[in-house]
């Protein structure tokens, strides 16, 4: 039975932290406000990543002005499909993924059809700031559509699984796999009912999962066990996440990575205020991972050294799991 209120002592033993503590000790303390711009605006993040050699989905075009709108049809015609995103969006809101043109419009990733005028309206809404922080006018980004590798097909329902790695002062400390479900409408968004699965930081092997802050061990739609799947390109992903610290300077980061069938791991976006639900996915609080890293000066360490340090801390908290 789920207790109505938990034991505070047990939460403290596991080092679970709340939003107040995250905001004060991590976001306010480690992420200077003027640097947040670098991750809030996805087009800036993308340029930084490209300059640092971190692979990202290719940019098809941006729409900032009504003049740019004239190029919309041409951009949408790109073979393989495109994803339309608000540059300053958050929590995956306002993202539309188009797979290919069909009669009278385009097909969306979830199989529905959308007319060109509906698409134009959506882009106009993005530009007028419907999805941006504070309702400021925004830019619409069009990126190549990522063709997802099939690794997680057994535990995904119609959509986009991605990997979130939390990086503290350049050290990857915890990671989780986010899986779309029927209720989340193909989005790997935990607020909308997506599934979060803890990943072993040393190997990328999946552990148990969570949905709506409750613990689960199989995917709610496919029924397949969540545990024991090996994430490919693991070392590469850790290194991409650790490098994201070097290019942005943000001490508390969430790196969101997807695996393309052809190109391998791609950095989708960076988050300067990553949430705390990852604690439930990992069945343990963040504090145990954070304290040793905060206590250490990581400024002189190389990417490889930081990854090794993060894994060392991880092993002091969790026992490793092996792929099934």
């Amino acid at each position, binding site marked *: 039975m*789920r*207790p*109505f*209120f*938990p*034991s*505070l002592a*047990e*939460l*403290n033993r*596991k*080092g*679970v*932290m*709340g*939003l*107040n*503590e995250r905001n*004060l*000790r991590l976001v306010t*303390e480690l992420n200077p406000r003027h640097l947040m711009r670098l991750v809030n605006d996805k087009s800036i993040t993308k340029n930084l990543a490209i300059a640092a050699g971190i692979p990202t989905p290719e940019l098809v075009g941006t729409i900032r002005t009504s003049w740019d709108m004239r190029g919309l049809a041409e951009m949408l015609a790109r073979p393989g499909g495109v994803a339309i995103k608000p540059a300053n969006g958050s929590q995956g*809101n306002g993202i539309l993924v188009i797979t290919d043109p069909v009669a009278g419009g385009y097909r969306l990733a979830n199989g529905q059809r959308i007319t060109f*005028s*509906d698409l134009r*309206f959506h882009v*106009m*809404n993005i530009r*007028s*700031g*419907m999805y941006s922080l504070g*309702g400021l006018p925004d830019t619409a980004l069009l990126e190549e559509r990522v063709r997802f590798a099939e690794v997680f097909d057994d535990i995904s329902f119609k959509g986009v699984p991605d990997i979130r790695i939390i990086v503290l002062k350049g050290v990857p400390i915890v990671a989780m796999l986010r899986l779309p479900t029927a209720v989340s409408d193909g989005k790997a968004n935990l*607020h*909308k009912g997506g599934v979060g699965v803890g990943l072993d930081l040393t190997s990328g092997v999946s552990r148990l999962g*969570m949905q709506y*802050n*409750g*613990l689960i061990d199989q995917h709610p739609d496919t029924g397949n066990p969540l545990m024991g799947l090996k994430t490919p390109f693991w070392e590469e992903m850790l290194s991409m996440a650790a490098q994201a610290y070097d290019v942005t300077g943000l001490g508390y980061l969430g790196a969101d990575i997807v695996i393309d069938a052809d190109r391998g791991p791609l950095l989708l976006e960076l988050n300067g205020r990553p949430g705390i639900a990852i*604690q*439930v996915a990992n*069945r*343990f*609080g963040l*504090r145990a991972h954070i*304290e040793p890293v*905060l206590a250490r000066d990581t400024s002189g360490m190389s990417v490889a050294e930081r990854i090794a340090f993060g894994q060392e801390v991880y092993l002091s908290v969790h026992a490793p799991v092996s792929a099934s």
Partner: protein
Amino acid sequence: MLLTTHATRPTVTSELHSRILALGLILAGVFVFLHKAITLDYPIFPDETRTVWNLEILIEFAADNRPVRIESFLPAKSEERELVDEQFYSGPFGLRLDQEGENGNRKAIWTYRYPEGPKVLRYRTTLVEETRDTPLPPEMQRENRGGDVLFETSLERQAFLVWMSNLRRQSADKETLVDLMLQELFSTNLSDEVAALVRPLPPPLDRLELARMVLETQGVPARIANGVILDDARRRAETVSWLEYHLNGKDRRYFTLGNPSVFFPLWYGLDELVDADGVTELSTQLSLQPSRLAGGSGAASGLGNDDPLLSLFSFDKLPLTTQLVYQVLLTIPVGILILVFLRQFVGIQTLGTFMPVLIGIAFRETALLTGLLLFSLLIGLGLALRFYLERLKLLLVPRLAVVLVFIVLCMAVITTLTAESGVRIGLSISLFPMVILTMTIERMSIVWEEYDAAEAMKQGLGSLAVASLTYLAMTNSQVEYMMFNFPELLLVIMGLCLLMGRYMGMRLSELRRFRDLSRPE
């Protein structure tokens, strides 16, 4: 505290800094508060509040298709005298205000060409009582050399001369002469001379007017005041008349009956309160009701004046209307404090950061139940429109504008409907903040689309719950009284907010969120 964590904190400097600042603010606030409460003996509870009076003039009459003109005196306004919250209920009648009539009177003039059937006109205001110490206006305080009497007949002139010479013989100076004159005038047995002089007016105006004329001949400025005596709540108050004059550097008032301590003059001169043309069955009703004003305690203002530190903090010198504004304004931080607590410690989700407090302030105009009802109704209507507009595919800002216009329209309809049925929501709703409503609708519909109806309802209800709580706190008379008379408590609130700004523990909602993590494995 219950929810503190045991983590080590690397941010010692900012932590310490904010704590010292918070402590300093709280100590300063508490020190001034205790100094006032204990040393200066300010009352902490609003027992000794100033009473204000709600006055209503109700004019009823029947009209039969003839042009109608109704004139009614209204309490005059001046710098010394503030009327709060004047309201006119004129129905279809045209209303004109005559601000500067003769004798310094103020008049409302209602007109209508072809009225039919029974009609009602109303005037309502809130006023502050006057006492014998209330000074007369400066033009009343100039004594002059006196003048000739304007009695028309020789008989009257003769009687006046006899009476005056008698009075002069029996008195020592002007003051005793006036006292004697008044005493004789209002005794039951009038001498022949006085009986001949009494004016052809309804009592007591007949004798008051004679007294006023006599005073004028003596160079004593005098006028007849008509008004109400404020002794207790009266559904039907009678108007009384009295004499006001200035003699030997003192303002004096002569009442024909009794010796009331608090009263309020409505108009000056010999006219009647209401003068109507073209109507039948005229009835005028004056009613009075005392109500307590939490702020501006007279006891507190008298004590603070000698202390230079405290006179800085005192609002008593401000005009009454400004005081009333501050009485509301000063309670808002209390609402904010509650909001901060509910967000940082409890973790209630609301639409927008300070939106609930703004809604709470709006409830002030409507009272809680009506406010909740109106708010839910308008939000419901607005959401329906918003979902309809979604089909039209409008740009963001014009769409917001359409919703806003719609809200104003809904308010107008509700106001007219309620005005017909006589319910008083009508006036209060006009101040209901429509921009807040519009933004709430937009946010709620986005949450509705991005998540689901349940989430939107949750946040909407959260907002209303917080709004209700802050409203109850902000309208509590003790809170109003304390904040108004002890504004130094703002420092304490600021300090508490600083302390809460460094709270790192779990929110109550998070304890529930992470409840599955607390099971030992």
